[in-house]
């Protein structure tokens, strides 16, 4: 895949402190438009803190950060309109139907009725969910839920979609189908920023960063990292970095 050189996310010396605890310690990195960027790290390394800042949900303590061309201090509402977000824990309303969830999110992102009707139909068709569009989310299998949640997160064609452990708990085939959807999204020009604990999934990213104790300890293409740390796969790279 060809990746443009434009920086869709630009982070310089980002610091986030909670009292005396430094959750993010001078993070500096950028994400290219259209790439799949893997944001890895152990539990408690500071990933969620950083994602919340990039999504405009929390202010950094200091640093210069621009997301989709907007500043995270003063233009948070503009950022929110240009991004999509999906987490493993919460993404769809369990007590709304498949169709209601789609229409709710589309409405929040200010799509008009005509756009909504058209895209909803396409989406249900593509995911094979037409027959169950009136079923409650709580009654459909997790794998379908995750695929739908992802589709909803990119329904408004955002510049960037943030995925926080999107594949936790699903079976290995569904996990791979999910990654094929991610690849397809990048074909439409969407930049993907993703966290995962499955190290084989780190291999599917164009570049990955690995965070340890609030700092980025490594950032490069998976192939380069494997070579640099003399490892057969990303799992080994991760263990070497995170264990020390």
């Amino acid at each position, binding site marked *: *895949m060809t990746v443009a050189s434009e920086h869709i996310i630009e982070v310089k010396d980002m610091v986030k402190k909670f009292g005396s605890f430094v959750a993010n310690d001078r993070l500096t990195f950028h994400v290219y438009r259209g790439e799949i960027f893997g944001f890895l*790290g*152990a*539990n*408690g390394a500071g990933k969620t803190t950083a994602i919340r800042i990039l999504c405009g949900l929390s202010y950094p303590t200091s640093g210069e950060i621009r997301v989709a061309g907007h500043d995270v201090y003063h233009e948070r509402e503009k950022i929110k309109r240009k991004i999509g977000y999906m987490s*493993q824990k919460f993404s769809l309303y369990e007590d709304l139907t498949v169709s209601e969830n789609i229409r709710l999110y589309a409405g929040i992102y200010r799509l008009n009725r005509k756009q909504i009707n058209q895209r909803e139909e396409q989406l249900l068709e593509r995911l094979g969910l037409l027959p169950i569009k009136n079923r409650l989310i709580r009654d459909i*299998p*997790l*794998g379908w839920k995750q695929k739908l949640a992802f589709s909803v997160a990119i329904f408004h064609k955002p510049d960037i979609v943030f995925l926080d*452990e999107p594949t*936790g*708990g*699903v*079976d*290995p*085939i*569904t996990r*791979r189908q999910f*990654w*094929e959807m991610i*690849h397809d999204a990048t074909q439409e020009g969407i930049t993907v920023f993703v966290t995962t*604990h*499955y*190290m*084989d999934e780190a*291999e*599917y990213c164009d570049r990955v960063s690995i965070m340890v104790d609030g700092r980025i300890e490594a950032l490069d293409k*998976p*192939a380069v990292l494997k070579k640099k740390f003399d490892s057969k*796969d*990303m*799992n080994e790279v*991760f*263990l070497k970095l*995170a*264990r020390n």
Partner: protein
Amino acid sequence: MSLNVNHIDKSFDLTRALKQVDFEVKDGELFGLIGPDGAGKSTLFRIMVSLLIPDSGSCTMNGYDVVSQYRDVRKIIGYMPGRFSLYMDLSVEENLAFYARVFGTTVKANYDLIKDVYQQIEPFKKRLAGRLSGGMKQKLALSCALIHRPDVLILDEPTTGVDAVSRREFWDMLKKIQGEGITIVVSTPYMDEAEMCDRVALIQKGTILDITNPLEMGDDDVPLFALRSDRGVYTHLDKIRKLEECRSAWLFGDELHVTLRSHIDASAVVSTIECWNDPSIRWTSITPSVEDRFMGLIQEEK
């Protein structure tokens, strides 16, 4: 036998959560229950630990029936549920002392058993359990499940959502606990963890598909190949799938794993691939990993 599960059925409303589930776990075995979310793992565990009554079938734990002799069962098992279930507003050491007393023992009496695990969180023993990180919560939960020196340890997805480093450490601890003679039944959605078990049961949609040594699961006769390319393998995925000879093709780390319909097809595929104008392609026959085997099995189901 530490655990006997005999033809268990369980339904919730119209959903058949477990269908004729039947297996046994030997004394001292590390037994894995492998399957995706919604397969019925937690339902089965809740029946095994006497928290749920099956519609039909029976289950015994060291000879005690989990329905009629549930009091005896509860004394000899340690159970770590999928959801963190310790007291968030008690400190680390208070939680541990509480579980010890509930089982009529003391932390001191069994400290040697939990020492390895507990030492890693002991520096934080005054901290409230609700304020621990994910990995530390998991270690505390394991300590609490072990503190009465159970005969059988039941762990429901102890590593879900846990990073690769903590997962590795957790399994090192399980191996040590097994060395103390404790039988362990553990569920996980991670296929690499299945390899650490003596035997695994694969469960999908309430049915056990196979029970086996992890490296012998499934059909051994399916030809499996790995495709690599310096240009990235994703570009070749669609093309491979369209081949008549191809049974399945999936992303697999930096490779594609491809199964063929028969061994004879391999040479035909090689000559096709040669026409794709990618000299960096490498195509090699490989031995299936646990994940390949599991995917083969659930594909048959689908």
